[in-house]
């Protein structure tokens, strides 16, 4: 009937999750075609060079996926990937610059020295936490949360049956203080139990917020805590920039025969009789065939809203479902980002400066000892729906990859990647372009904040500035609806068995043979290679895949069959 090409599986979108599932399925021997709208795959794993010689990351910068099975299953090292571990990962300064907190798995001495500024007890506490990282139980805990599909509908509601509860009960130290009331707590609540100093609480809250759930979000405490463990466990950066990570995954897919069509936006997911049949590409695609068919599955690596509000024709969808997709909240991951090229790293004042000069870290946060300021920034974005306007709403994060990765910029320079959280453009009370219009004002505020803490952040040190707003991100990356790096808010209503909606939590959709594989599904963003790994469990069942001996499932995985037959 048609000469249009047929594949086993079509993947819509070449972000890290789309590439990941393409690599997994190609490695299983399926005939896979991935369609990417842009000129280049990678999605948020992007490194650009808008200023010659300086590699800027508009989105992802750190990789926390050290505990992911994908490294070995996809053999990413074979495809040229190298990781740069920061000897000292992060340091954070107090408002008076007299003390610091320090986080690093690789430099216990620095961590101890910073801990002692707060007393011997804090130093020992911190050291004890780092010792947990070396245990298999820690890896298991992380895998139970991030690398396990949410349990199926109808599964036990007993907390003791939840994968991460099983795992946390084995986690040294934490298991001493854990009880089931933690399931309803926020990160803030948990920090009140496990931390004694405000700086520790703020530090953990920021680490959690910048990696997933908001620190005030009830029921997300364990997830937020797990996020901070991800960071401590294996924070490192792909050599050369985050795009290298996408390259390695893409090449794994290509090496196993995957077809990748770039410049090929999918305009429609073709549905017949309630079943996904293929996709229709934009007329501008260089592909000779604008309609391509999939025999086994269409997998959407597009945002859940793009998938159902734009790609699947609405006539195939239930009105109630359509509305619930529309209502999904986009808060929490929209960043106003300022890249600065400087000649010298920021020189902090006082004791903080002495410490930070001695242990140059890959990231800085300041101030770290005032919870009120953190709450102010959160409330400005979420409640008042505006960007930060004064210094009492300003906690700045500054990422400095060039300290450890010499490929980022020429000798004699550094790149500072600074950001604060702002509302998604759609939610900003002054309109979607508000942050763009106020760009200079926000940059001035960030700079003035810098100058309160550092002595050398004058114009003579700053060579160039490059701003990226969430509005810009949503252009660059159609997947970043609202400019949100994790797609949608990470909150109890939108996480685990509820992410992005309860009926979509197992990556299946109301359309047969259509699956989701985007960060809007469990467990969310961070390019952990977790969504594709989780989806593999489902596809092995549905498509009767027979992966080779390289594959191993999550020990915590619960299949639909197990629930239906009451095997548990």
């Amino acid at each position, binding site marked *: 009937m048609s000469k249009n090409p047929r594949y086993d599986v079509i993947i819509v979108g070449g972000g890290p999750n789309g590439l990941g599932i393409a690599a997994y399925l190609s490695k299983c021997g399926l005939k896979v075609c991935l369609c990417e709208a842009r000129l280049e795959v990678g999605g948020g794993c992007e490194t650009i060079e808008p200023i010659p010689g300086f590699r800027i990351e508009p989105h992802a910068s750190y990789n926390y996926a050290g505990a992911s099975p994908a490294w070995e299953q996809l053999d990413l090292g074979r495809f040229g990937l190298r990781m740069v571990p920061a000897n000292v990962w992060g340091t954070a300064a107090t408002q008076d610059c007299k003390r610091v907190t320090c986080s690093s798995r690789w430099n216990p001495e620095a961590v101890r020295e910073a801990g002692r500024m707060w007393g011997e007890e804090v130093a020992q506490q911190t050291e004890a936490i780092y010792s947990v990282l070396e245990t298999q139980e820690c890896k298991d805990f992380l895998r139970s949360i991030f690398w396990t599909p949410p349990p199926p509908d109808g599964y036990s509601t007993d907390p003791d049956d939840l994968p991460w509860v099983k795992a946390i009960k084995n986690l040294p130290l934490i298991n001493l203080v854990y009880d089931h009331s933690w399931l309803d707590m926020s990160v803030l609540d948990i920090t009140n139990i496990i931390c004694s100093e405000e700086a520790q609480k703020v530090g953990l809250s920021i680490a959690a917020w910048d990696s997933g759930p908001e620190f005030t979000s009830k029921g997300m405490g364990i997830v937020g805590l797990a996020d901070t463990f991800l960071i401590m466990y294996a924070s490192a950066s792909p050599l050369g920039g985050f795009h290298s990570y996408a390259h390695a995954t893409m090449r794994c897919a290509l090496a196993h025969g995957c077809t*990748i069509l770039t*410049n090929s936006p999918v305009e429609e997911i073709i549905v017949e009789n309630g079943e996904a049949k293929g996709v229709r590409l934009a007329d*501008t695609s260089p592909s000779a065939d604008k309609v391509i068919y999939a025999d086994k599955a269409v997998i959407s690596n597009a945002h859940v809203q793009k998938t159902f509000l734009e790609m699947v024709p609405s006539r195939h969808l239930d009105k109630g479902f359509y509305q619930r997709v529309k209502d999904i909240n986009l808060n929490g991951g929209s960043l106003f980002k300022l890249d600065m090229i400087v000649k010298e790293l920021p020189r902090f004042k006082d004791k903080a400066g002495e410490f930070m000069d001695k242990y140059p870290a890959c990231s800085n946060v300041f101030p770290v000892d005032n919870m009120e300021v953190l709450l102010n920034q959160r409330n400005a974005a979420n409640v008042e729906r505006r960007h930060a306007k004064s210094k009492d709403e300003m906690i700045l994060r500054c990422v400095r990859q060039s300290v450890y990765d010499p490929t980022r910029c020429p000798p004699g320079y550094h790149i500072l990647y600074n950001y604060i959280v702002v509302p998604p453009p759609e939610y900003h009370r002054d309109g979607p372009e508000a942050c763009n219009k106020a760009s200079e004002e926000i940059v001035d505020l960030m700079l003035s904040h810098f100058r309160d803490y550092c002595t050398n952040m004058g114009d003579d040190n700053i060579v160039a500035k490059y701003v990226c707003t969430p509005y810009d991100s949503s252009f660059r990356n159609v997947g970043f609806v609202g400019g949100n790096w994790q797609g949608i808010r990470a909150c109890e209503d939108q996480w685990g068995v509820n992410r992005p909606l309860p009926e979509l939590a197992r990556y299946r959709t109301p359309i047969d043979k259509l699956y989701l594989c985007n960060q809007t599904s469990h467990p969310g963003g961070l390019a952990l290679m977790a969504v594709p790994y989780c989806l593999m469990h489902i596809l092995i069942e549905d498509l009767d895949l027979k992966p080779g001996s390289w594959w191993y499932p999550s020990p915590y995985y619960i299949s639909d069959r197990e629930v239906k037959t009451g095997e548990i």
Partner: protein
Amino acid sequence: MTTTRFPYRNDGEYSKRIHPVMPNQLECDVAVIGGGPNGLMTSAYLAKAGLNVILLERRGEIGGGLATEEILYPNHYANTHAIYHMMVEYMPAFKDFNLGQRGLLWVGPNAQTGMIFSDRSSILLHRMEEDTYDSIIKYSQEDADKFIGWIRKLHKMMDELLAPGTYAPPLPAVELAVKMHRTQIGQELMEMMEQTPYDIICQTFKHPKVRAVFLYMTCMWGLDPSETGLAFLVPLMISRGMQKYQCYGGSHKLAGIFGKEIVANGGTIIENGEVVKILVENGKTTGVELFDGTIIKAKAVASSLDPNTTFNKLVGEPNISPGLAERSKTWKADKWSLYSLHILTPKPLEYDVQDELRINESLMNIMGFENEDDVMKFFLDVRAGKLNNIGGHATCETLYDPTLVDIKGRHVSKFQFPAPYALDGDPKNWESRKKDIENKVLDMWFSHLRGMSKDDIIKLTSESPVDVETRIPSMIRGGIKHGDYNALQMGYYRPDETCSSTRTPIQGLYVCGASTYPGGMVTGGPGYIASNAIVEDMGANKWWQEPAFITRYVTDYLKD
């Protein structure tokens, strides 16, 4: 302390513990240095021949001059180097890799190269001779008549001699001359060699405007208008100047497809993999070392870098002869580089021209010159490091490739011209005069446009020769051809008579970049010739067949 930077080392221990990533010792059959068009092509041919290939690229992205980057605005792309490719019909890789079936499209419109003059008149050179004839005849019946005969002769030289010669190893100059003199067409080519491009153009055409467009088109990519001994490039530049093909989806697309071929055939691409040493033992290559300490053992190494880098910096004495060391040290960089100004506008550019309706469909429009003397003066200035009058060529990249912009209706265009690396004697002047030059370029460019003013520009960015070198340091002094085109650095002497066949005096070391015969410009010549040599030397499966036009050239023209 505040400027501290830590040198990254590829630490196997760390990788074993947390991230199972690339080991710090690798082995392969062939290590290829440089992921530009030639390095990519060499790697792709060899990988498909069953050799285990590792391609090493210093940047985070393969492609070299095949670069399409987001330099203007999120999701608005511009080609920072090559926009179009000139050897599309000839490049053997096109058929060997069936690129057309791999999503690679080339758009080659009939309207190819226009020149716009201050009195709103213009010339438009087309792919179809008849249309060009009609454009030239406005100025001179004699030139138009001359054009037809001339262009057919040049196309013939191209088809029979120059194109096939691009993909066959070079012969010593004397030997080549003897063989060329056996045929009429060969003799004519040899006669052209004795002249300068300027002389050839002026002897062929009478009208100043006609001379201007042909002279600029001949020399825009780095041919010196007053240099003798190189004029075999005139037919190539003229013939190709009317057969340009824009790579749909951006020039980088071509790089991506070769990258895919390499990986799909078991090869490995390592970006951020700057090579700091070519390992040589007992006169034989054994591999390379990367900046981060990674050692790659290889039976053969192919370098696409310039000879000074390859032989003096990466191999080094005592493994090369003093002659080769000296020759490489004195290797001359390109006489000039390119300056580019990229703009994003809300609509396509419309030129204020009274005669040529199709000028707005042209792939390229040249402006800023009224006659051949203006062009000549411009090139002499550039050669002397000066930028007195602004002139150059403009392309609206989105005219034939809407995929470069995200927002429908917006357009990305670029104005480019040959430019000295050391402006007024010092490369630093590019930075200090950046704004001033941008304004001058815009004033000149926009004086030829209608319905648009400078205020309509949404985004603008410029790249000087210094920026070219910063992005891609292998383009020394911004040189896109990895070395000047002069009689001593071309043909059998590129880069040296001992290496122009792509084999070098060091066993297992090959050269395969733009500084090797036949030169730069995304012809794929050096990469193709090197692939043939390596496959033969390593006894691998030569899976491709020489195209008939090359075989014919070798048997008809070169046989003894």
